[in-house]
């Protein structure tokens, strides 16, 4: 047993309102630079829908992830020799048009247009070549099913379940899917990089691009089936979601988690057996990949695991954090979280609690009590199309685990409603989903109340091979071209810093409204009066 630790995330899709706050704060932090205009490390897509980049889930076209060749895992885009032969033009690279052509508006025209009969407009301008352009696609063009059923034809998951269901589907079911890099246990982006610039960190499993080693071969973009590595067309380097590692190292949640208005993201440590990963990723049947991945995770409560972890160099407080990990609870204890597209065989580590609300809503629309347990179970069984779709996303088409997760969520609703209405708890409800009432209440606390320090259990960073003084040198964001170089980049560090720390001096005597308590008139709230003013 070779124990490794991974910082993993779970998102509770029931609570996502599709507000895109996570995407915007992430972009402001990481990709608000030239060359990354089109890049969203975090994006939120409406499902059913095409996603971003368009139709990225169609691996027959984009060739991301792994495939099995005679029982062995090979990158779907081809092994080492084929990759090198494609070095000078990568035939499976999504183009800017597949993401979208980034644009801005010519706001100048609003103030400089000559006087005339028409109100002046701000016409769109390409951010790539500066020329006037027609805006025909964007990062969330089909948001909220905008654009009509026509766009649904581009959803590869929906295509798999069949044409006839499309219209009916659109009327009954819609939800949001926020996506970041999955920080996979078996990352195909890393495997595809000819320069060895991408790597998985030993300590926390975060997958990063070494900017000094990347040579711009763009193979990782093809390699990632989730299309979560991007090519910066200004620097000529690949960039990807960093799991906000400078924050996570300090024990803080990622920016997308911190700012999520639905408070639906969970961060914590998962312990897994690295020796089992290869075998689990190469089980022949795709439907077996979800259980196989579950089988890689280790129970941090097991003393044998704890001692093996410490023997593998994982510090005590990481094992301790793994024990309290909300992510482990949702994935392994309650089994309500599921991986996204396990069939890509990359062993993704951002998991999702499937959405029950659309089913409750559909039930309520028919005039039934949407929270009565019998009704809910009946609805979960009868709404086969949504179930099939969710299974296409989360379990490679196997409906049983999706159904089990939804039934547990339904049981939680019914159970808690009785308590809230002052009725006696009905242990039969919990029993129908193989849980104890107390367990359901703990799950309720985690999913519904979602307290800050229960959502995020993040141990601070350590250096593998303890005592390596280097690690204190920090995250290296200050290198030329790094975000730390920008004056505003200080915001990364200052984001969660209490007032009065070093990060404050960029305020230059003004007050930071974000942590002003609203009382009194602190110095700097208003600019100093001009000498001899009114």
């Amino acid at each position, binding site marked *: 047993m070779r124990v490794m630790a991974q910082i993993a995330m779970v998102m509770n899709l029931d609570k996502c309102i599709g507000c895109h706050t996570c995407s915007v704060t992430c972009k402001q932090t990481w990709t608000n630079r030239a060359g990354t205009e089109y890049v969203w490390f975090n994006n939120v897509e409406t499902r059913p829908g095409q996603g971003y980049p368009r139709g990225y889930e169609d691996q027959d076209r984009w060739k991301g992830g792994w495939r099995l060749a005679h029982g062995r895992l090979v990158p779907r885009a081809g092994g080492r020799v084929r990759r090198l032969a494609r070095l*000078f033009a990568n035939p499976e690279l999504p183009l800017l048009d597949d993401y979208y052509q980034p644009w801005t508006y010519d706001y100048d025209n609003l103030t400089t247009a000559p006087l005339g009969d028409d109100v002046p407009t701000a016409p769109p301008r390409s951010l790539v070549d500066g020329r006037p352009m027609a805006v025909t696609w964007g990062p969330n063009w089909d948001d909220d099913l905008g654009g009509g059923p026509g766009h649904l034809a581009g959803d590869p998951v929906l295509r798999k379940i069949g044409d006839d269901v499309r219209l009916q589907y659109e009327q009954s079911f819609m939800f949001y899917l926020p996506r970041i890099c999955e920080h996979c246990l078996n990352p195909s982006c890393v495997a595809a990089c000819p320069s060895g610039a991408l790597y998985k960190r030993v300590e926390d499993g975060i997958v990063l691009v070494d900017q000094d080693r990347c040579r711009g071969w763009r193979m990782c973009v093809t390699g990632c089936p989730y299309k979560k590595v991007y090519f910066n067309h200004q620097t000529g380097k690949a960039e990807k979601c960093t799991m906000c590692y400078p924050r996570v190292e300090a024990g803080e949640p990622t920016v997308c988690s911190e700012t999520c208005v639905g408070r639906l993201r969970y961060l914590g440590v998962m312990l897994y057996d690295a020796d089992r990963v290869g075998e689990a990723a190469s089980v022949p049947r795709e439907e077996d990949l979800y259980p196989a991945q579950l089988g890689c995770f280790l129970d941090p409560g097991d003393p044998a695991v704890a001692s093996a972890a410490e023997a593998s160099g994982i510090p005590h407080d990481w094992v301790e954090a793994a024990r309290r990990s909300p992510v482990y609870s949702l994935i392994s204890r309650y089994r309500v979280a599921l991986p996204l597209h396990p069939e890509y065989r990359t062993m993704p580590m951002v998991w999702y609690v499937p959405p029950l609300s659309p089913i409750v809503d559909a039930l309520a629309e028919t005039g039934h009590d949407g929270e009565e347990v019998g009704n809910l179970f009946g609805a979960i069984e009868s709404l086969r199309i949504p179930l099939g779709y969710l299974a296409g996303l989360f379990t490679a088409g196997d409906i049983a685990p999706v159904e089990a997760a939804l039934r547990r969520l339904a049981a939680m609703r019914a159970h808690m409603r009785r308590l809230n209405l002052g009725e006696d708890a009905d242990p039969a409800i919990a029993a129908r989903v193989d849980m104890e009432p107390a367990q359901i209440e703990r799950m309720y606390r985690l999913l519904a109340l979602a307290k800050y320090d229960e959502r995020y259990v993040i141990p601070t960073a350590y250096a593998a091979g303890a005592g390596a003084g280097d690690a204190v040198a920090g995250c290296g964001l200050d290198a030329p071209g790094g975000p730390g170089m920008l004056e505003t980049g200080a915001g990364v560090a200052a984001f969660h810093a209490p007032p009065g720390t070093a990060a404050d001096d960029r305020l230059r005597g003004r007050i930071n409204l974000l942590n002003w308590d609203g009382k009194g008139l602190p110095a700097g709230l208003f600019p100093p009066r001009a000498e001899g003013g009114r």
Partner: protein
Amino acid sequence: MKHLQIALWGVLPYLVLVLFVAGSAWRYRYDRFGLTTRSTQLHESRLLGVGGPVFHFGLLFVVAGHVVGMLVPESVTNALRLPESVYRENALVAGGAAGLAAVAGLGILLWRRLRVPAVRRTTSRGDRLLYPVLATVLLAGLWTTLAGAATGSYDYRLGVSVWFRSLFVLDPDVPAMAHAPFAFQFHTALGMLLFALWPFSRLVHAFAAPLGYLVRPYIVYRSRGASAGVGAGRGVAR
């Protein structure tokens, strides 16, 4: 005239070599972040899909041809009983084809760079200097190959190659080069310019050829401490 010849074929090669080595070392030490292919495939893929491979593979063969033609003395092929005429025909066919491919590929790529606005915008000042030089070197090289074959009057393996090899024993055979036809001198001089530009232009990405990929395991693990250590804390990871 004599002094010019000495300067060109006796001194300049060493200056270029120093510039090439020192420049590359400097670039590797201080600008690893700048070592990249600067690919523009994101903007345009159809023309690149043809031009990119044709140019690069053509060029690789051209380089291989130069290595053979410059470094293997005629005495060796004679000893191997390879008749001079056969050698020449091979060199003409293989070299000519590779040269033509490189020129055609470069033509496509340059056309693309000029005509696709998004690509054109990425053209740097260095590129504007480099591309004309590269194109001229290639054309001049092609000309020496084709014209040399047509007239058959000059055997570069008894002239240019001798001079080239003499550079490495620090005893430059200036007359060997000074008596070469103008086309060869032109091609060689511009070639030196290319090597001088190499470390400071996008040509430097040739050093990044990722041959290690063939032998490394697919998944790379790195420790946090190690990643902070690259280039004294300059390892920016995103």
